[in-house]
């Protein structure tokens, strides 16, 4: 079978279970039942990236979030800089773009062959029309995730302000882990 067609039609059932498992680990979808997760799964896009391939560039309009199904993703500001973060299986990025089209604040590239699950703003909007209950559950999960990140960012800023930043930031990071 041709690669394009096999990509569309021959997704195996074992893949479906693993996608659901990956989604379950994402805090945004934590409160969803199995039935609801299956609904979300139908909206998810599967994309594969080669080693070093750009996923998105800083400044481009953001369209949604990516979840690492397998492989690794580097988040970086400039092409030759050290990465800001390296994300692995089950981790996610770009979730703020689910809310609006503001430009991406950093770039992302695959490290090694990487498979991503993508959940985008248009699908979330569709879901809010078709199944408002599920849509709101996801929005609450998203708000909680953003809230937690904001809290952590505030903590870091306070630590930085209070002097001796290096050791305290490390301590904060340790606490988060």
């Amino acid at each position, binding site marked *: 079978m041709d690669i394009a067609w096999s990509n*569309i039609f021959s997704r195996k059932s074992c893949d479906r279970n693993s996608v659901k498992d990956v989604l379950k680990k994402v805090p945004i979808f934590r409160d969803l039942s199995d039935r609801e997760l299956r609904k979300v799964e139908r909206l998810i896009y599967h994309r594969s*990236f080669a080693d070093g391939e750009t*996923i998105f560039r800083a400044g*481009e*309009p953001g369209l949604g979030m990516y979840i690492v199904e397998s492989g690794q993703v580097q988040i970086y500001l400039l092409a030759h800089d050290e990465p800001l973060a390296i994300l692995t299986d089950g981790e996610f990025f770009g979730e703020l773009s689910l809310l609006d089209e503001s430009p991406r604040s950093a770039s992302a*590239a695959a490290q090694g062959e990487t498979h991503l699950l993508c959940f985008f703003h*248009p699908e979330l*909007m569709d879901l809010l029309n*078709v199944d408002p209950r599920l849509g709101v559950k996801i929005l609450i999960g998203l708000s909680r995730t953003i809230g937690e990140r904001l809290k952590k960012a505030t903590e870091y800023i306070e630590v930085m302000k209070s002097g001796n930043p290096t050791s305290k930031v490390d301590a904060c990071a340790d606490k988060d882990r």
Partner: protein
Amino acid sequence: MPVRTKTAESPIWVKWLGVAILLAAAVAVLYSLSGLVKILIISALLAYIIDPLATFLESRGLKRSGATAIVFLMIVGIMALSFLVLAPMLVNQIISIQQSLKSGHADTMVKQIEQMAAPHFSSFGVKEVNIADRLEAYAASTAEWFFDHILDMVSLLTNIIIIPFIVFFLLKDGRQIKKQFVSLMPNRYFELSLNLLHKMDIQLGNYLRGQFLDAAVVGILSTLALWALNVKYAFLFGAFAGVANLIPYLGPVLGATLAILVTVIDTGQISTAASILIAFIVVKLIDDAIIQPMIVARSVDMHPLVVLLAVIIGGKFFGILGMLLSVPATGFLKVSLQEGIASYRRYR
């Protein structure tokens, strides 16, 4: 140090040449399959108009297939009812007009109008106005088109079966079709194409549903106004005004002209013609001031010249149906281009 590869960029002229070849090939294929394209356009327009109903039922807990089936049955029911109730009414009114135009009274009226109009047209180099001949020729060609396209049993049956079939699957599987289409895009253009399709979907949906609702409201208002004025063929003229309203600028003029011309020829009452003109002006004012701002997407405003050209080209290739479909089709092209260019600039 991380290594991030960049995809090799082709020279800009290669890209544009590729786009031009693709466009030319697409136009050639579409032209050679014009019959199929017409069916697809009608089906897509219908699917766009009906879609919110299916989505509403889905939001009440029904599955997409169930919601689509219910909406579909409703629409088929309404269409069957219209065919049984409204079609005979329209046919009766058309036959009645034909008979009345053949009567001696109409002949006298037409001659009087010709005599009145002839001196005014002579300055344009027109020696004979011949309204009767022209009307007869136009009526004959319209009837021929009507029997060729609408009442031709083979094409009627094919369309009755194929169009609902396509509409049903577009409604039921539209999202999956869109998803699979976007999935085929290379990673570099994936977000761009998804975003573009999403924006086009919203804009087009609003535009087409707005146009359809607007035409329906104008049709109903015109029918009511003409009925209140006791105009003989109120339903026929109202329905025509509604359908003609799909063509901006020209539509309302066409609707009013037909009603006034037939009434004057049929009854000879200039006062009724004046009341009809006032009724159409009032409906147009209500349409411009209240209905259009409420329901028609302003972003798809088109220049009058573009509308005129679209109608002429549509008429040339697809006849009367082409004239009606040309405006929504041009709206589709305009939205696609607008969003395409905007998205390309944002992602560049």
